[in-house]
């Protein structure tokens, strides 16, 4: 099926099921219970999961396969957002043309930037991409205000032309993005006992796009082109000595991953039609690097895991405050309770970035392969233990 090998096919199906049933899976705790704060099954957060998943999958095609560490990928996401919002302003509120334009524009930008930056490699490449992204950020923030909206960001207005759509709804509101009549923000709640599951059209649209881009990523990973990119990572010099020009391949990888970023940006704008320059700042580029490394660079599922992991814990950790901590440790004696809460307090709420930084350092130091490698290690450790159990000690000893 899908021209994939067996394992990849299973992986794709698993990812597909997980994303499609996410409203159930992410809402395991009944509404109103003490654990309900750990639920992540609301549309806004689920959309972020899949959108950043797409962004990280794309980044991984560049970094995971070729080893070129770009520190300016958020620029393409920002460009994609702007393109999509302009499409909403000028053409119509349908998301399809908006997303197509955002992918195309991001592709053009990445072609230009990639063409220049890929003349160098290693840290110079990182600095060049960083320089380009910071340049775009600075320009979007200041001089290009007529196009980008500057500090306030690009927003829809009531007097936008929208040639193929209405400038405003009959009630005099700004129309919302939709797909041939389906409004992106529409959702319906399914109440089962004390559980409430929310199904959101925007989320399912993003989820379908993510599954498609995940499939595309698998095909790229398994293609001769993907093999060539891996060869670039392991020994570019040797590739050059065999008479092969690697630059077209790396450039193609750069453009593909830029287009993925543009797609993510377009989706982001489709879910919430505004775009701001801060999406292009280098800290945003750093975030996608974190996601990819945390999940496992160079693996298929890693970036998706990393994106989900970071966005989930960002959300949960930011919500916990000292009262909740006190509730958790209420069973301890008072002195100990205060002590533990005082220790944990810096890491929660606004301290989420501290936790993220420490976690990230731990991953880079001890687990360079990210969560995926962690999973593999645990599995091999379990298998080893199992096989040790199955073979009693006496029988393995060599005969004398």
């Amino acid at each position, binding site marked *: 099926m899908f021209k994939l090998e067996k394992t990849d096919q299973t992986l794709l199906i698993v990812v597909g099921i997980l994303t499609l049933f996410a409203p159930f899976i992410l809402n395991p705790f009944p509404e109103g219970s003490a654990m309900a704060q750990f639920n992540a099954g609301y549309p806004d957060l689920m959309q972020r999961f899949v959108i950043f998943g797409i962004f990280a999958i794309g980044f991984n095609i560049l970094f995971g396969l070729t080893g070129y560490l770009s520190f300016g990928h958020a620029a393409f996401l920002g460009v994609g957002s702007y393109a999509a919002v302009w499409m909403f302003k000028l053409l119509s509120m349908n998301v399809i043309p908006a997303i197509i334009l955002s992918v195309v524009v991001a592709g053009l930008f990445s072609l230009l930037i990639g063409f*220049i930056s890929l003349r160098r*490699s*290693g840290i*110079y490449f990182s600095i060049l991409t960083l320089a380009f992204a910071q*340049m775009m950020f600075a*320009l979007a923030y200041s001089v*290009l205000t007529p196009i980008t909206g500057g500090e306030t960001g690009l927003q829809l207005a009531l007097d936008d032309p929208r040639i193929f759509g209405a400038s405003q709804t009959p009630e005099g509101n700004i129309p919302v993005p939709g797909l041939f009549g389906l409004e992106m923000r529409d959702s319906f709640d399914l109440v089962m006992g004390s559980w409430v599951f929310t199904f959101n059209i925007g989320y399912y649209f993003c989820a379908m796009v993510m599954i498609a881009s995940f499939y595309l990523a698998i095909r790229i990973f398994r293609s001769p082109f993907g093999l060539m990119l891996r060869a670039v990572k392991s020994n570019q010099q040797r590739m050059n000595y065999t008479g092969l020009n690697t630059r077209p391949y790396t450039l193609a990888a750069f453009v593909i991953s830029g287009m993925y970023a543009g797609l993510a940006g377009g989706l982001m704008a489709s879910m919430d039609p505004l775009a701001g320059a801060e999406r292009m700042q280098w800290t945003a580029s750093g975030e996608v690097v974190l996601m990819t490394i945390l999940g496992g660079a160079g693996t298929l599922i890693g970036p998706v895991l990393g994106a989900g992991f970071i966005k989930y814990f960002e959300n949960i950790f930011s919500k916990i405050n000292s009262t909740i901590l006190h509730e958790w440790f209420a069973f301890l004696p008072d002195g100990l309770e205060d002590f533990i809460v005082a220790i944990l307090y810096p890491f929660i709420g606004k301290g989420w970035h501290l936790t993220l*930084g420490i976690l990230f350092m731990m991953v880079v*130091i001890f687990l360079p392969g990210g969560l995926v490698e962690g999973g593999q290690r645990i599995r091999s450790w379990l298998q080893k233990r199992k096989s040790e159990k199955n073979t009693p000690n006496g029988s393995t000893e060599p005969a004398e």
Partner: protein
Amino acid sequence: MDAIILQILNGLDKGSAYALIALGLTLIFGTLGVVNFAHGALFMIGAFCAVTLSRILTLSHTIIDETKTDFLGNPLKVDVPYVHDIFGVAAGNVIIDWAVPLAILFAIPVMIAVGVIMERGLIKHFYKRPHADQILVTFGLAIVLQEVIKYFYGANPIPTPAPEAFKGSFDFGAAVGFDPNLIIYPYWRIIYFFFATLIIGGVFAFLQFTTFGMVVRAGMADRETVGLLGINIDKRFTIMFGIAAAVAGLAGVMYTPINSPNYHMGMDFLVLSFVVVVVGGMGSLPGAVLAGFLLGVLESFASMREVIDIIPGINQIIIYLVAIIILLTRPRGLMGRKGVMED
């Protein structure tokens, strides 16, 4: 003419900060071969050394002054800093006023300790790992350091003024024969510039004229041979890391009166300093200093009204633009050495 002199002067103080940070970055890169993304955080920690010292100096206890009353008629409570008790009121006030210059003495041991702990505790384990891993782990460290500072000092900038004696501006134009009030320049920025030149000169003299510096330079050129000659080069490189951290920290201490320190000032400077290092040439100390001043001055020229009128927005992007042009035309940077970081 006066406008040009003014812009050169304006560029010098920012350029000094760039040059100091880039010098430290290059020292670390040249000796240990590590790309340190946490260097901006060291600059920030230096700035917060100044904040900490001025807080320590103004630590006070409350006494009740019987001679005065507040508006309710109760005896007035007065906060008296401990330095007043120790040195007397007049001397105590001078000490509090001079908190920032005094912080230099405070910051040097702190920064060297921070640098040595960082090198021994973390960076040591990353010599053999690829540059991408070094970038990533120091990037993580930078996030952690900045969040720790944010936890203790809050997210808002903390104003830390210069001593009263250096407030106000110097009429540079009048001194060199232009009309008065055409070129005026704050005293503290002049001091910052001279301080930076002093530090840079000190580092170069240390490397050039001491035995220790000679060994370090030899180690930068050929680490293995120096090791084979029976010299413990690792120990010296660790000390160099401490010195590089101290240079960044001092740049931060002295920058506090120019720009109130906040927790993300390090990141803001880091990106630019990396660009400076790359423009100067990876691993070249004179290159880093030259490029620092050059880009600082270029940036302030680009902020001139006349220039912005011709090319709008140029002041925002000039540094990056120069970096891109330099990297593409002179791949080794302005003064890069052959064979250093040539991918």
